[in-house]
């Protein structure tokens, strides 16, 4: 069972931007695309742990502010030729309220 935690509203995140959420798993970045899709990732670039929440969001990707690695918001994977992955978390938009699924994450993160 996923434990859905209300973390705020979609309006709290600027379009093509991100906010952070402090969790037991560490800092999580929640992103909002131009088309109002939302995604959540552990806020660490697989390259040198750069805070992805500070990157430029484009389409369903974000460019890390430190060295410009491009990370897929959906999968957490880095774009080729770079290799690496950060953990994606379950996030859903229910009528504007954002629900973060932390148990689902834990499952991914541990295993």
């Amino acid at each position: 069972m996923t434990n859905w935690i209300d973390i705020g509203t979609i309006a709290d995140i600027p379009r093509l931007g991100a906010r952070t959420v402090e969790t037991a798993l560490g800092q999580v970045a929640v992103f909002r695309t131009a088309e109002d899709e939302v995604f959540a990732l552990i806020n660490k670039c697989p390259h040198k742990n750069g805070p992805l929440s500070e990157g430029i969001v484009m389409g369903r990707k974000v460019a890390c502010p430190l060295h410009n690695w491009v990370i897929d918001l959906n999968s957490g994977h880095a774009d080729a030729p770079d290799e690496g992955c950060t953990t994606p978390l379950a996030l859903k938009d229910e009528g504007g309220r954002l629900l973060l699924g932390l148990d689902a994450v834990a499952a991914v993160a541990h295993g």
Partner: protein
Amino acid sequence: MNSVPRQRLVVIGNGMAGMRTVEELLARAPVRYDITVFGAEPHPNYNRIMLSSVLAGEKQIDDIIINPRAWYTQNAITLHAGDAVIGIDAKTKTVTAASGLRVAYDKLLLATGSKPLMPPLPGLDLPGIVTFRDIADIDKMLAAAEAKQRAVVIGGGLLGLEAAWGLKRRGMPVALVHLMPTLMERQLDTEAGTLLQRDLDERGLHFFTSGQTERIIGSERAEGVALADGRTVPGDLVVVAIGIRPNVDMGKAADVDINRGILVGDDMATSDPDIYAVGECVEHNGQVFGLVAPIWEQAKVCAARLAGDTVASYVTPALSTRLKITGIDVFSAGKLAAEDDGDEEVVFRDAAKGVYRKLVVRGNRLVGAVLYGDVADGGWYFDLIKGNKDVAEMRDRLIFGQGFADQDCCGGSKAGLNVAAMTDDTQVCGCNGVSKGAIVKAIGEKGLTTLDEVRAHTKASASCGMCTPTVQAILSFVTGSDAAAPEVMCKCTDHGHDHVRHAILDQRLKTMADLREALGWKTADGCAKCRPALNYYLLCAWPGEYVDDYRSRFINERVHANIQKDGTYSVIPRMWGGVTTPAELRAIADVADKFNIPTVKVTGGQRIDLLGVKKQDLPAVWGDLNQAGLVSGHGYAKGLRTVKTCVGSEWCRFGTQDSTALGIKLEKMMWGSWTPHKVKLAVSGCPRNCAEATIKDIGIICVEAGYDMVIGGNGGIEVRVTDPLTRLTTEAEVLEYSAAFMQLYREEGHYLERTAPYLERVGLAHIKARILEDDAGRKALYARFLFAQSFAQDDPWAERAGGGVDAHEFQSLAVVS
């Protein structure tokens, strides 16, 4: 004179096949027929292929007219546009139109094209459902796009994808439903189809593959589609593009033989010897048609027969496909995959560049090619396939393209188009059947110099546009012109920086969305490379009007501090000309204590850096610094950084002028300005140059007689000593000339280009011409700089310290356990 009375030819269908046949006929037998054309559409003959480009906003209807009304008049053709034929009496040889008009014929040509295939779905008659076939459909789609509705496209073939892309370019959110797991499965193999989906997904299209549409949702009008697996896709506009079927209505009316299409023989005649048919309405040898290349062949044969030729006969040529989505390059011809053990597949991938190629080789012949990402060699492979050429000799190099395969040794030439190596009979334009030789000949004989002229005279690259790079290469090769394209900004566009900057001014583009639309950006949101550049270009072009897009700035410029490798920030207050006071120093010390700032460092730009500030502390740090009168030093900005000075005549025994005060004046004039890259100044009080002015973007070196102004220096990775610009006599002149150069660089520099490479690119002579030789021009630059500054000089720290601007940047959204 020929006294034989003219025969009467009636053509039903004013489309591509019908009018191409008439053109061919006029070329062969200009006076043989009195020609009457009926067209159901109220337009003259236009290039249907280009409707995709019209939808995407790349072309206007006027641009795609093939034969304007004047052409009909000149050739004595009677055109009834907007009057469909509704009946044919083959016994009395007359046709009847919807208007009641009756016209008799000796020969009749059916060229009625095809109809969009409609699935047997409930709800298909609701308003909001359109097909993609003619100008009327485009009008409906554009009206929907105006109203900013959402679109669903059913069908992931050529037509559906082009419709989806066009609507997306018009600003609609677009979802595409496709029955199969991969796109364009009839023209592409799985890998290329997957790459295509990935790239289009990146551009903001949403895909529902393996999606069987079950019904249209909505009662009054379409509200979306429901899929068999339970998914629903909302949309106010539903475009059905699942295929076409021959329009055989006129065949039925004339009572000629029909199967899937109107049956024709090799002579393009139907079962009635006086009735011919061409184009998508026909069926020949069990085959029906959906591309223009074979239709042009039919038109030739049909025209020859109508002109009295008795041997011309039609054979379906090999076909190739190309998708017309700007910036997405896909090509396929022949087999998509090995069909048995005798076939071999050769595959090449370059994932980083997004290039994929697959060749299918049977024995020593190439029988299929699928190219993705780089299709420059498509025409060449297609030639090998059509010509059934023996490729044994170059088998191991074939996959790398013509540039490599044609060499005796593979190291000899760079990959890509090798115009010299193409034989004259190599077919360049598949749509219009134009060979390299014909293009070379037209360029030479008619003195053609532009692509448009070549198109007008030869029709090469005038249809689908796939061969445009090849035609361009031939043009450059023959005319010897330098075809070297400017460096493109990024993967999102084919344009270079200068082109974009000019377009912003010429087309008065004032928002990022307008700009990307007008210039055909390939990605919906741009990328981390082009967004900051475009934001700067717009800001520079429209001061006071353009609203700075913070989402397009790098984090440092967004939070007005420098991100460090551990995610903390550094904060540098401005110290005008490097001069400070005890009160300021105390405030800095207090802030460092209060916020536990681990490192305090004196910078090379004569100020103090506080390193290791936590993001959430930034507003409070700024607030405290503001209290002491300290403002942002823009140590993070692509903008004015520091003005370094020495103490000058006030204290120094060598000093010739008050360099410190002059430095402060320059800094007060220039602070807050955004520039293509960072800008550093220095003012030295004498030629000993303690402020190191000769490695700055703008340096002022005071001398007894006045001020030497030097520009374009750089102390970074590539050290460059400044070039002397001029000697000035007053401080006021120094301010004016410095600001004018700054503005010139702001207007002409490429984003992330420092003044040193900028100067080398445009040349010192250019800068002298603009700043020294053109007094009025210099004064105008100065005025433009001051005008822009009137909007730029707000302390970003003050705006944020109070929690007003961008408060969300500095706080977590939530803390959860």
